[in-house]
């Protein structure tokens, strides 16, 4: 049983390693149209120097809204579980 687990893990590792080695070369992305648009236009559209912040809060604000919701739910869960002892 133990050797079966190790063998399964090695098979998974082999697949992941093959995927990593035979992926496209590091540093040469294939589809860069959207990111080129963000890099070119973020200064005139959002007037922000930091493109990552522009993407985070303007172009993809819904992702940040969902992330804030997840954080809120996690805090709510922690408070709910620990409310009996931590008062």
């Amino acid at each position, binding site marked *: 049983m133990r050797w079966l687990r190790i063998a399964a893990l090695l098979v998974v590792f082999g697949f992941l390693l093959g995927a990593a080695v035979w992926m496209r070369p590091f540093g040469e992305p294939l589809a860069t149209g959207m990111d080129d648009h963000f890099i070119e236009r973020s200064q005139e559209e959002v*007037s*922000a120097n*930091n493109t990552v912040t522009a993407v*985070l*809060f303007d172009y993809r604000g819904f992702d940040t809204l969902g992330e804030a919701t997840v954080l809120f739910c996690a805090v709510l869960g922690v408070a709910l579980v*620990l409310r009996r002892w*931590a008062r």
Partner: protein
Amino acid sequence: MSVVVRTVARLLLAPVAIFGAYVVMHGHLTPGGGFQGGAVIASAIALVVVAFGAQRLRKQKKTLSVLEDVGATAFAVLAFLGIGVTFFYNALAGTGGLFGQTVPIGPNPGALNTGGLLPLMNWAVGLKVLAGLGSMVLLLGLLGGDDDR
């Protein structure tokens, strides 16, 4: 904790908090932003919890809760400011008012008064992350009791 830890924590508390506020405030100019700066300030809260015990901060749970609500509400309200065009439209950018200065295209030294809604959203998210992570650390610390102070 021992007196060494407490003294070092007293010395480090203000610089850590101020650095977190700096990271939040310059989020639209330099690497960083609301999440990172909020996490840095939350680490100041964790420093207090570790060094002085969580009982010291027990009364601040309500404050952190209010801060988190303020952050979340401010984020949603700032997103609604641009509802005339789309949700999350940057309504303040380039208007010349608050944070409305236009930036020169290309590499530039950066001015604090740019970015439109981005600095305000950075502050909202920073408040939210600081309150969220801080209250989680505080609750987990309150669980330990007084014996390991």
